[in-house]
């Protein structure tokens, strides 16, 4: 673990993104557009108040998952990962560098989407803004960590893109967005209990109903952070210095 290598990596990834305006545009623009659509398709402010914040947790998760899994796969296939492995780079330096860089991007994303939701779209938030921002950030870090981890299972970018539905869509169905988790049949609820996205939705729900930092919220956040950490450690284990 070397802080200056981690920060250099973060800086390098941000520089890559700076050269890629279109990706930045998509990262920020797509969730904004979806939020606007959500608001006007249903045209029911009460419903928007309830679901909007949940999506503020899910969007960064999904988008960061896709961006990170493809970016790390590129690193693996282009030979730069191997090059870094012949240098003093620690595996965690690289992963944390990625996590930090994409968290900053997620901050930008959540900031823009939230600003538009609270002003133009008239989102009415019961809970505190800060809990919402922190929860949304945690969701994006989780997306980054799972994206890093899952990229180990893909050999090509074709496969990497398809990991998104594989890793994300089942979680989306089970996370409590469509049907509250306690109304699912027992075995499904059991599965949803061990999936990280369930806790991001729980956290977001908590934020919408209570202005205080409740015990439930803290517990959800700790669980999300734990999942993210676990995925990072597994991700580190998939990086190999020596390959066949």
């Amino acid at each position, binding site marked *: 673990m070397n802080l*200056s*290598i981690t920060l*250099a*990596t973060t*800086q*390098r990834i941000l*520089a*890559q993104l700076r*050269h*890629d305006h279109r990706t930045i545009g998509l990262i920020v623009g797509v969730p904004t557009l979806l939020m606007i659509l959500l608001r006007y398709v249903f045209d029911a402010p009460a419903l928007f108040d309830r679901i909007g914040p949940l999506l503020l947790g899910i969007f960064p998760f999904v988008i960061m998952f896709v961006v990170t899994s493809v970016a790390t796969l590129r690193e693996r296939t*282009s*030979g*730069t990962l*191997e*090059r*870094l*492995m*012949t*240098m*003093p*780079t620690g595996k965690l330096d690289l992963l944390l560098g990625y996590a930090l860089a994409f968290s900053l991007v997620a901050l930008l994303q959540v900031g823009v989407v939230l600003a538009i939701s609270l002003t133009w779209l008239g989102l009415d938030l019961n809970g505190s803004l800060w809990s919402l921002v922190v929860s949304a950030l945690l969701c994006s870090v989780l997306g980054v960590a799972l994206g890093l981890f899952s990229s180990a299972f893909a050999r090509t970018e074709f496969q990497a893109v398809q990991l998104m539905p594989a890793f994300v869509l089942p979680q989306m169905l089970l996370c409590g967005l469509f049907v509250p988790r306690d109304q699912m049949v027992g075995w499904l609820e059991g599965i949803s209990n061990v999936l990280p996205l369930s806790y991001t939705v729980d956290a977001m729900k908590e934020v919408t109903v209570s202005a205080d930092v409740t015990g439930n919220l803290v517990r959800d956040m700790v669980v999300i952070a734990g999942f993210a950490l676990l995925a990072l450690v597994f991700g580190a284990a998939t990086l190999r*210095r*020596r*390959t*066949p």
Partner: protein
Amino acid sequence: MRDLTVVRGGREVLHGLTFDVPRGSVVGLLGPSGCGKTTLMRALVGVQIVKSGTVSVLGDTAGSKALRKRVGYATQSPAVYDDLSVHENLRYFASVLGAPKEDADRVIEEVGLTRHRDQIVATLSGGQHNRANLAVALLGTPELLVLDEPTVGLDPVLREELWRLFRQLAERGTTLIVSSHVMDEAGRTDRLLLMREGEILADDTPDGLRARAGIDDLEKVFLQLITEREGARA
């Protein structure tokens, strides 16, 4: 290197190689494509899983932590970030290596890319791309340079310049192991390892090889060695 055996893709590609490389010399690794040059180099920098044998580099086991700043490696296909400028790439790798900040500009000049310093790598020509890749290996002034086909796709003038650079580096005490499949580059080395099908056919100075075979053209020397080897087998 002692008795190095490597299996890749279920096939044994290096069959118990043994050789030594004296410090401060330029060693050429020559042989046709697919003969195991790259695998051998990967073993030297410690990214290759080896089946048996030992590889010791600058007094340490290949790939050990202490060596990661002392060995520079350039792969055959460039391993640099396409979406960054030449300078951004080098600045990043320099900070990973803990090399001084000025190193990025120094190596850019050494490989002759000063005019393209701020150009995005994806827009460089193949030869320039290759040189950007080589520049990364030069960062931090490593004691051993392992360069896989560094002169592929370069015009004769640039090739000449790079070989002059390799010579300068060797004079400063750097050891260079340079692979190539072009025989006319073989004459510029201090020592030649001729490889074929995962074995070393000869390990000698270019002059020594010429004298032994009684031929001046190294390409013909190589051919003769192969015929001798096949004859010995039959």
